[in-house]
Structures are given as structure tokens and as C-alpha cells.
């Protein structure tokens, strides 16, 4: 795998790229420490910091474009973080700048949208403080030039995610969901931490440059272990099987959070980790294969879950799982898939944020109703939302010439190139995507109005619709821009390696045509079931398969029976042992001594003559003993 050398930065905007992280962090600190005094202008500060960070990212991006290809990976040393272990520094290269642009760009739009969405919330300032904290942590995650820096950002986004899922902590369901997300992520973070420890003991460094340089010389087994441990971390953060269960519950958070953290950016951190660690996976084929398996399994599982959810946000969350599964699959293919993984990640960031914000706009209009069975026929009353949602919908199902068409097709083509079986499974996933996304579309915007009696839907204010429009423009054009003439592949090549042979985009390849046919079939089926036919207001019981999907493929039940119940039994056994064993020993000893002394003191009976008797007896024993000793 050939990547460009990392060179020392010599100034320019790249030299001050730490501002990208520092500005939102400053915003978060001011808003959190400032307290109620900042209530009036807190949201404006939050937006300003995010936009400022975006401006720095754009300027740095332009500066990178102006450099020769072998100059595009620049290290920006900051300070000695842990002397002898890690120097903190930033790595500005095509890969990290892509992420920085996505995070700050989509992040800023969602900040702006939140001004409108959260306008009635008394805690809006706190919300913006957490959003800023998240942006700062996420940027640290992608910009750090070593695994320890990545890990700090990784935990930072986990914290921000926890705080934002539980933002309405007065709702028990939100508090529980936040806890669940945190605990499930802990499993993944544990794997990541052990992986980083192993990297340190194997390579003697945690910085990307030195580690990747010598990655090939390490023992095969160790590399595989590192790859699998990093994958465990990625699974936790990116809601991949088997650590997927937290993402659907995470929809308890405010909708902009679902859009920013649980669709566009944070959940893609796992994909970033796998792509960034490409040099390690390059030499650990088993681990790489496991990545593709996880990706395919998740893309199918997410799609199936998405088919059965009536909660609009949960349907979208299932689709997020599924789309990240596609990215994971592409990231597991090696250099040939990296560019497609990132391309899909970027376009997905746009169209999924677009749809989530659209869903938020609908909820805003429908008194926070999330059940799609209570929607229907909404497009005439909220045209901007409907049209922008439509572009996102067409993009995700892979409607020709829209973003998702190019990026998903790229992934499928690349997979076919490496492993046709997985490729056809990915094609099947695309067909299911066509069905469940159409179901969302038809149930929400078309068909008969099934509104609650007190619902008076209305279009959202401009501060919410303008971000939607910008995102929908990205949903339409970004895919073609990135994929055609391999633009992103060539741009990323210095960072992730150039594939052996470039895959050109062909509209008439067999898998592409089959995908289109399957998607069309999915859309048609959805039209028959949810567009033309009446949608009942109360969900029908459904077949075994429907229940299976509604219950998240029994993922929670599995976790409960495999981990929670045995864990409870373990604690119960430990408590029993503590009460009966340890306490029993101590208390039994004390009771035994007490009982014995209680009996012994009966000897003290008050009769002088019996005392005399015992004295005599004792004296006789002493004399006897002396005599016995004397004769020896």
C-alpha cells in the first residue's frame, strides 16, 4: 500500500488548524461556565464558533488543493503530551480534511437549524454548548496524528453523545437510552483501548506515521488481533453488529442530535478508524475480511429493522445502521474501497442529515408526533420540507444521477471486484433500502391524512428550511461530483493509498442494473402497501418476520439473555456468597465465642466450696505435672 510521506508543516493556515478544534471548544467552555448569563446569545455564539471552524477547514482545504500531491500530508506538532509516549499533533491530509469539512459543514447547518428547532426549549444554551463540545471532540478524533489523540476525541464524542441523547433527562426513556448508549459504547471503547495498548507494545509508538511505516514487519497474529480490536471499537461507535443495539434508542435525543451525531458524523467514526488504520488491515487479511462480514451483516440487519419501524426517527436510524454497514463493507475491501467508503460517508452525511432534519421539521409541525401512522398527506402543507426530504429519499435509494446512486453503486462494484457473494448481498440490501425508504416517504407525505385531531401542521421557519435546502443540494449533486472521473479516489490516494486499478463508473454494469431493478421493485411494493392502500392508524400485528424486525431482530432480547441475566445471576451469587460465606464466617465466629463464653461463665456459680474444689484440683494437676516433668 503506497501512501505519501508525512512531512512537517511549515506554516500557513494548516499550521493553525488547531483553531478548528479550539474554537468550538472555547464556545462550549464559555456556554457551560457562563451559565444563565449567556442564555440570550448562547445559540449565536455556538453557531459562530462552528461556522468559524468551518471557515478554517475550508481555507486549509484550499491550501491542500494548492499543494503538490506528495506535499499533501502535513504534520502539525502541538506539544509533548505524555513525554516519551505521545507527542500531541495534528495530521492534516486529504482524509482528515474531508472529515473536517463534513463535520464542520453539516455541523454548522445543523447548528443553524437548531436555533429554530430548539427555540421553545428553556435549555437551548446548554444544547448548543454540548453541540460545540461534540464538534470539538469529533474534530480532535479525525485530526489527531496519533491513536491516543484519536482516543481522547473518541471518548469526547461518546460523552457528548451521552449528554445529548439524555438532553431531556426528565424523560426516563431518554435517560435510559443515554445510559444504554454509553454502556454499549464502553464495550467498543474497551476493545479500542486494548488495541491501542497492543499497538504501543508492538510498535513502540502510537503515532500514525511510525506505526504504519513498520506495520508490515509485525507478527501476523498480532496484526490480526489489533485489527479485530480496532474493529470492536469501530462496531461500538458505528452501531455495527453486534454492538448495534444503542443506536435505535439514541433517537430519544432531540432531532438535530440524531441528524448530526447519530447519522452524519459520530457514527461514521468507526469507518474513519478502519480507513485510517488501512496500513494495519493491509497486512491482516483475516481482520479485513471480518470487517466486510460485519458490514454486510449490519447493512442487511439495519435494512430489515428499517422496514418495520413506525417511528419515523427509528426507521431512519435503521437506515443509518444499514448505510454505515455499506461504508464498513467498503472499508473492509482495502484501498479499492476506501474512496467509495468515504464518498458514501460524505453523501450519506448530507442526505441522512437532510432527512433527519426533515423528520424534525415534520415533528415540529405535528406537535412532536413521531408515529408515521399519524402522518400522511403532509406534502401540500409543508412543501419545502417535502421537496428536500424527497431529494434525500431519492439519493438514499440510489435514484439515477443523485448522490447515493454513484456512491452506493461504487461500493457494490468494488465489492463485486473482491467478493461477488458479498456484492450480491449488498445489492439485495439496496433493494430493501428502496422498500423501507419509500415506506417512510409514502406514509409521511402521501396517502390519506391520518392526523391527530389537534394537529395543525405548518411549514417550519426559514432558519430551519434553509439548512434543509443546502443539504438537499448536496444530496443531489455531491455524489456525481465525488465519483465521476474518480475525483475523490485520486484526492484521497496520498492518504489511503492508490488502488491497483481504478474502477471507472459504468451506468450499464450488470450489478448496477440489477440494483436499479430491485430498487424499483422495492419502491413499487411500498407503493402498493403504503401508498395506494389505506394505512391503518394502529399497527397490525403482522407476521413473525414483522415482529422480528420490530423487535430490532431480538438484539435486545439476545443481549438480555446472554449478558444481562447471567450478569445478574453472577451478582446475586456474589451477594449470596458475601452474605452467607464471608459475613457468615465472621458472624459465626463471633457468635461461637459469645456462646462459649456464655456457657463458661456458668462455672462462676457463687458457691465458695466449688471454687475451693477447682483450686484443689488445679493445684493437684500442677503438682502432678511438676512431678511428671521431674521424673523425665
Amino acid at each position: 500500500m503506497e501512501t505519501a510521506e508525512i512531512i512537517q508543516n511549515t506554516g500557513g493556515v494548516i499550521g493553525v488548524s488547531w483553531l478548528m478544534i479550539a474554537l468550538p471548544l472555547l464556545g462550549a467552555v464559555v456556554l457551560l461556565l457562563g451559565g444563565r448569563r449567556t442564555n440570550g446569545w448562547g445559540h449565536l455564539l455556538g453557531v459562530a464558533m462552528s461556522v468559524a471552524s468551518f471557515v478554517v477547514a475550508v481555507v486549509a482545504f484550499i491550501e491542500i488543493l494548492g499543494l503538490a500531491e506528495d506535499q499533501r500530508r502535513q504534520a502539525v506538532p502541538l506539544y509533548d503530551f505524555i513525554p516519551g509516549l505521545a507527542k500531541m499533533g495534528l495530521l492534516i491530509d486529504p482524509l482528515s480534511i474531508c472529515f473536517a469539512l463534513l463535520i464542520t459543514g453539516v455541523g454548522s447547518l445543523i447548528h443553524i437549524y437548531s436555533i429554530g428547532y430548539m427555540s421553545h426549549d428553556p435549555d437551548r444554551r446548554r444544547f448548543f454548548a454540548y453541540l460545540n463540545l461534540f464538534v470539538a471532540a469529533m474534530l480532535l478524533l479525525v485530526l489527531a496524528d496519533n491513536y491516543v489523540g484519536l482516543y481522547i476525541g473518541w471518548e469526547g464524542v461518546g460523552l457528548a453523545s451521552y449528554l445529548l441523547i439524555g438532553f431531556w433527562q426528565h424523560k426516563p426513556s431518554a435517560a435510559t437510552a443515554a445510559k444504554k448508549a454509553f454502556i454499549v459504547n464502553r464495550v467498543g471503547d474497551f476493545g479500542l483501548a486494548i488495541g491501542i495498548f497492543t499497538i504501543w507494545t508492538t510498535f513502540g509508538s502510537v503515532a500514525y506515521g511510525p506505526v504504519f511505516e513498520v506495520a508490515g514487519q509485525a507478527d501476523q497474529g498480532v496484526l490480526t488481533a489489533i485489527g479485530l480490536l480496532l474493529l470492536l471499537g469501530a462496531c461500538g461507535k458505528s452501531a455495527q453488529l453486534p454492538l448495534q443495539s444503542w443506536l435505535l434508542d439514541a433517537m430519544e435525543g432531540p432531532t438535530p442530535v440524531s441528524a448530526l451525531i447519530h447519522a452524519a458524523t459520530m457514527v461514521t467514526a468507526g469507518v474513519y478508524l478502519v480507513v485510517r488504520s488501512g496500513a494495519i488491515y493491509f497486512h491482516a487479511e483475516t481482520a479485513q475480511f471480518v470487517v466486510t462480514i460485519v458490514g454486510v451483516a449490519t447493512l442487511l440487519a439495519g435494512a430489515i429493522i428499517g422496514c418495520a419501524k413506525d417511528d419515523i426517527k427509528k426507521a431512519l436510524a435503521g437506515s443509518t445502521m444499514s448505510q454505515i454497514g455499506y461504508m464498513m463493507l467498503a472499508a473492509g475491501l482495502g484501498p479499492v474501497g476506501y474512496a467509495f467508503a468515504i464518498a458514501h460517508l460524505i453523501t450519506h452525511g448530507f442526505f441522512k442529515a437532510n432527512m433527519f432534519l426533515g423528520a424534525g421539521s415534520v415533528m415540529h409541525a405535528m406537535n412532536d408526533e413521531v408515529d408515521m401512522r399519524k402522518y400522511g398527506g403532509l406534502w401540500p402543507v409543508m412543501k419545502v420540507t417535502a421537496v428536500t426530504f424527497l431529494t434525500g429519499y431519492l439519493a438514499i435509494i440510489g435514484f439515477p444521477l443523485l448522490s447515493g446512486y454513484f456512491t452506493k453503486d461504487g461500493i457494490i462494484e468494488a465489492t463485486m471486484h473482491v467478493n461477488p457473494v458479498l456484492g450480491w448481498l449488498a445489492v439485495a440490501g439496496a433493494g430493501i433500502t428502496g422498500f423501507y425508504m419509500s415506506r417512510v416517504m409514502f406514509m409521511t407525505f402521501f396517502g390519506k391524512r391520518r392526523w391527530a385531531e389537534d394537529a395543525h401542521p405548518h411549514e417550519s421557519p426559514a432558519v430551519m428550511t434553509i439548512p434543509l435546502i443546502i443539504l438537499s443540494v448536496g444530496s443531489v449533486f455531491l455524489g456525481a461530483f465525488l465519483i465521476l472521473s474518480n475525483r475523490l479516489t485520486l484526492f484521497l490516494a496520498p492518504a489511503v493509498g492508490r488502488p491497483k486499478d481504478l474502477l471507472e463508473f459504468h451506468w450499464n454494469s450488470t450489478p448496477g442494473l440489477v440494483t436499479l431493478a430491485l430498487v424499483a421493485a422495492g419502491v413499487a411494493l411500498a407503493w402498493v402497501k403504503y401508498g395506494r392502500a389505506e394505512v391503518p392508524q394502529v399497527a397490525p400485528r403482522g407476521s413473525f418476520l414483522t415482529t422480528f424486525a420490530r423487535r430490532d431482530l431480538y438484539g435486545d432480547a439476545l443481549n438480555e439473555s446472554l449478558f444481562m441475566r447471567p450478569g445478574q445471576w453472577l451478582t446475586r451469587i456474589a451477594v449470596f456468597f458475601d452474605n452467607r460465606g464471608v459475613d457468615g464466617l465472621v458472624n459465626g465466629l463471633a457468635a461461637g465465642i459469645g456462646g462459649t463464653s456464655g456457657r463458661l461463665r456458668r462455672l462462676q456459680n457463687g458457691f465458695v466450696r466449688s471454687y475451693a474444689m477447682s483450686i484443689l484440683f488445679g493445684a493437684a494437676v500442677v503438682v502432678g505435672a511438676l512431678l511428671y516433668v521431674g521424673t523425665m
Partner: protein
Amino acid sequence: MTTHYLVLSVLLFTIGAVGVLIRRNAIVAFMCVELMLNACNLALVTFARQHGNLDGQIIAFFVMVVAAAEVVVGLAIIVTIFRTRRSASIDDANLLKY
């Protein structure tokens, strides 16, 4: 030659010990204690003579002093108990117990 003295001492001591054990009258038990003390004195003096040094005799004097002091205190207690309870039986004076 001194065996007879020792035999006498043992006899006296045994009589005293048995007396302490079986008699209930405090005065009698008390006298039996004195008897045991004096049996010991006899044995001590006998051994002093047997070994030809004065250690035993000196200790016998100490025993007498202790016995005298004991008589003073002991009799006072017995008299006091008799005055309050109209009885000198040591089995009746059994309140100090567990």
C-alpha cells in the same frame, strides 16, 4: 528422720482441705484454712531442718504474718455477714456469681 513430721503435715493438710470442701459453716471452713496453712508451716520448718538452712523457717514466719492478717479480715467479713443474714453458712452467701 523427718518423715514423720512430713506425714503429720500431710495429714493435717488433708484434714484441712477436706474440711474446707465439705463443711458449710464459715467459721469451721475458716479454721480448716488455718489448719492447712499451719500444715504447710510444719512442712516448711521440716524441710529447713532437713536441708540445714533457715529459708523454710523464714517463709514460715511470712505465712504466719499473712495468716494473721487474713484472720483479721476474714473474721470481720464473716461477722458482718452473720449480722446481716443471721447465718454463717457459706452456701447461703452465693450472690456474687455470673
